[in-house]
């Protein structure tokens, strides 16, 4: 291995340990605050403020988890424990959990599939990928929009496509949106800025690829392409 690769690997290991070390103090702060929130002897207005504090702690924890996925040295451990599960069941579960969110905007999510393929996966991570794509579609689509989730086989790939009628992404930004902390210029929504970078890392972990087709003002199509196993 070259010196540079060795150096990078070592940096990733140190950073991974650092992230790991952050989890215990976060856990302590959160447990303490949540015990106070359910304590009736504390005035309601104080407890309401503590709710906001816990949300900030959760935000840091969320960032820590996302950064861990972006570190390559964590991946091998995950891949060693992959299980073969139905991709359709997983996506259906994500769609069902997000439907009430779409209903708020009078949007309709339709899931169209003729394929019930199994893939080797880390279920939690893969759910996170589809959760990111489908919740983005809801977020960036107007009222009454239609969101489609399509399953199909294309050559040697199982494809899950998330298609929306949202604001779309300009051509020059389409590659950059998969970079960590990149913010698309026509977006006001808040977020960690890691969503798509993490989704991309999760796809790679599963030997899958995310392909984006989008036109500004006309919506986006995110295709997640898994290699078909024989």
């Amino acid at each position, binding site marked *: 291995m070259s010196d540079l690769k060795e150096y990078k690997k070592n940096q990733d290991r140190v950073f991974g340990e650092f992230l790991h070390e952050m989890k215990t103090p976060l856990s302590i702060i*959160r447990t303490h605050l949540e015990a106070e*929130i*359910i304590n009736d002897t504390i005035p309601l207005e104080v407890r309401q403020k503590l*709710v906001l504090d816990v949300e900030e702690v959760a935000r840091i924890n969320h960032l820590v988890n996302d950064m861990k996925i972006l570190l390559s040295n964590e991946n091998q451990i995950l891949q060693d424990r992959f299980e073969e599960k139905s991709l359709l069941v997983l996506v259906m579960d994500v769609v*069902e959990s997000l439907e009430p969110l779409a209903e708020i905007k009078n949007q309709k999510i339709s899931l169209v599939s003729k394929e019930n393929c199994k893939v080797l996966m880390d279920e939690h991570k893969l759910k996170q990928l589809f*959760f990111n794509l489908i919740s983005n579609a809801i977020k960036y689509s107007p009222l009454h929009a239609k969101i489609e989730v399509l399953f199909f086989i294309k050559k040697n790939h199982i494809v899950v496509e998330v298609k929306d009628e949202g604001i779309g992404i300009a051509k020059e930004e389409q590659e950059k949106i998969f970079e960590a902390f990149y913010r698309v210029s026509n977006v006001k929504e808040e977020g960690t800025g890691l969503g798509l970078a993490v989704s991309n890392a999760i796809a790679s972990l599963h030997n899958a690829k995310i392909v984006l087709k989008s036109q500004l003002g006309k919506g986006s199509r995110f295709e997640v392409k898994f290699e078909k196993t024989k």
Partner: protein
Amino acid sequence: MRILVVEDEVKLSNNICDLLKTQKYECEQAFNGEEALDRVYAQHFDLILLDIMMPLMNGIEVIQALREASNAIPVLMLSARNQVQDRVDGLDAGADDYLSKPFSNTELLARVRSLLRRHSEVKSSLIRCKDLVMDEVKKEVKLNGKILELTAKQYKILELFMLNMNVTFTRLQLSEYIWGEENTLRSANAIDAHLKNLRKQIGDEYVQTIRNIGYILKK
């Protein structure tokens, strides 16, 4: 119910005990694996919350020792390692469930209750709240004797409330419960929408809103 908390981080251990005491559990502490075994052999406990990474004897060795001695006490593992290997090793050694740090109070209490119910001598699959009856085996809910058509997610949310009556859940806790810790939406609306759908099925009087805090199911 007596619970032994085995955790070498003193502050975290104290916090867990404070939380358990709010739910009327009796709580004892041990700060390393050897101390944990000494206590378990000397006294009766209904459940052990066990950290994995500990000095002297780690959590997995503790479970192995317990199971080799044919002690079947339920064990809920706690670990900062969000990695599958620890979970597999722990479960292989004989742990009953696993929780990775940081965990929310909701999740901890729900798992504790669930494990205690699973191992309690009086095994009933029915949970009741006024006219609402949940059958955990059949996975069905009846209101005034009539079966409700709940979606899987609605059932899951209601189950959390039925297992934890009189406990307040924040929107964040509920969203982590529904979507998983890694998928939390920073949108209170999403949780409110789920609760609105649930109330359409069970009526408004069961799950109550506590303004700017969350929701509660009162006995």
